[in-house]
């Protein structure tokens, strides 16, 4: 008799815990880019903390996974760290999905050297040559006669892949590159090593007071030889695309975003979301063309 009572009680407790969860609000499914997954996860957590009832699930899997997900309507938002290919947009239209794109952050890398390095500017091609190991002495790119000491991220990082695709032209990294455990360790190496060159997210360049950290020198990067170089800290240059090593990060929705999805996106591109974007080491959307495109797509 007692046993039955216990089982009944347990069953009741079980039901009690399941029932209220069932009719909860629909969960927003976000899928895609691995580069963005951490950022979006943090954004989602902060947003959920501030918005009662909001439920967001963020998955990685790569940009392609997210795009396929949106086309097959298995997710509400697709993250991609590249533009959609025309073929993918065609596929979407065929399935009755009309994707709209929002730039939520800009991924860009600064190329940094030790402050004792006299060099001021490099072209994208020269940075590529350094990291492929084709150039082993600073003299070959207009610097002083000193061996190049490469600092990079480990192959599990999105920045590693981004550099490889954008700057190295999809070629192998030099095997001599020191693979550091994070942006902070690269900075540590750059501060000590006079022959060093490293790439880090722009967020890591600042000290607590918002100035550039002492001991570092950020290189101007130009697209063409003898072209004008730009600094990654120059917001206008990044916004206009004049700074070459950057790319917009997209979130795409099916048609005009509705209710809670729209609120979430608006919050991300708003001041609160953008301050988190900056804190996580990405560039903000800024006031330029990305913002204009976003505004248009919200309507």
């Amino acid at each position: 008799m007692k046993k039955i009572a216990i089982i009944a009680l347990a069953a009741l407790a079980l039901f009690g815990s399941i029932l209220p969860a069932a009719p909860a609000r629909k969960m927003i499914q976000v899928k895609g880019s691995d580069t963005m997954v951490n950022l979006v996860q943090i954004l989602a957590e902060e947003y959920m903390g501030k918005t009662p009832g909001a439920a967001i699930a963020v998955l990685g899997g790569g940009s392609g996974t997210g795009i396929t997900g949106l086309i097959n309507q298995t997710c509400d938002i697709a993250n991609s760290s590249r533009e959609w290919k025309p073929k993918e947009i065609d596929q979407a239209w065929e399935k009755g999905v009309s994707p709209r794109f929002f730039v939520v952050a800009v991924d860009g890398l600064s190329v940094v050297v030790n402050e004792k390095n006299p060099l001021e500017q490099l072209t994208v091609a020269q940075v590529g040559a350094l990291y492929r190991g084709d150039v082993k002495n600073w003299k070959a790119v207009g610097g002083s006669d000193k061996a190049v000491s490469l600092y990079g991220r480990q192959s599990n990082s999105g920045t590693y892949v981004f550099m490889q695709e954008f700057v190295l032209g999809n070629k192998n990294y030099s095997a001599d590159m020191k693979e550091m455990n994070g942006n902070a360790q690269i900075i540590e190496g750059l501060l000590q090593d006079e022959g060093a060159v490293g790439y880090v997210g722009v967020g890591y360049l600042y000290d607590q007071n918002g100035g550039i950290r002492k001991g570092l020198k950020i290189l101007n990067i130009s697209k063409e030889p003898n072209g004008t170089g730009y600094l990654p800290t120059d917001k206008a240059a990044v916004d206009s695309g004049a700074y070459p090593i950057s790319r917009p990060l997209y979130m795409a929705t099916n048609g005009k975003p509705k209710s809670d999805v729209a609120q979430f996106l608006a919050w991300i591109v708003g001041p609160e979301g953008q301050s988190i974007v900056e804190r996580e080491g990405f560039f903000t959307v800024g006031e330029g063309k990305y913002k204009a495109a976003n505004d248009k797509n919200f309507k």
Partner: protein
Amino acid sequence: MKKRRRDLKEAAIRAFFLTCGVLAVLVLVGIFLTLVTTAVPAFREIRPSEFLLSKAWDPTSPEKAEYGILSMVVSTLMVTGGALLLAVPIGIAVAAYLSDVAHWRVREVLKPVVEILAAVPSVVVGFLGIVLIGPVLAKIFHTGNGLNAANGSILLAIMALPTIISISEDSLNAVPTAYNEASLALGASRWQTLLRVKLPAGLSGIIAATMLGMGRAIGETMTVLMVTGNARAFPHGFLDSVRTMTSGIAIELGEVPYYTTHYYALFAIGLVLFVITFAVNLVADVVLRKYQEREQ
């Protein structure tokens, strides 16, 4: 009735302890089997000879994926060998000092201190390598940075020292006092006694201590990962940046796509590492046993 009950209790306790003993064996066998079954699929695409003898490791290469672990194996052996080169002479000297020279009061303080050294977390040791030993090495050798095999060796030496000192000292103390007394009675000095009688008598213990220290050093991951720079190139000296097998696994296992050749290859590295440490521990065990047998 009472006796039966007691027998039952006895049997239950016996079974409990048997289970505990068997569990340790099961876990070891389980780990080994998991490693083997997960490592073997790697060789559907990688030739074993290429895996063991090629210097190039670049599984995520956009050009051609490379799976050669020779550079990592050599790096591991270099860092470990360097560590032993530093730790063994110092360790034996400290052990000899503690067992023969030191006043008992000094020993009472020094020995626990040495043992506490073993309790320092490896991340902390690694941090020491980054902020202290690295810059010092860079200054001395004018290499610009101290992220190299030498730094790793020094830190691993520090981490292997407590094991080496502690076990060597035990083995020196285990040398029968009769040996000591006989040697002194024959007119040998204390130095001669230590060098020619006690150290040879305790040699197997010292070798076992070295092997255990080596086992500790080979498997260490965090410290090495933090200070050796992890460049994939084949090392040409102690001032080169190196990537050991353990760091290689730790760096890449985190985000490798599951059930790919890359994933299986990381387990294959683990298997090679397991075989090496197993061999080292086995040798240590055999030597230690020989030494204990002789004592009896």
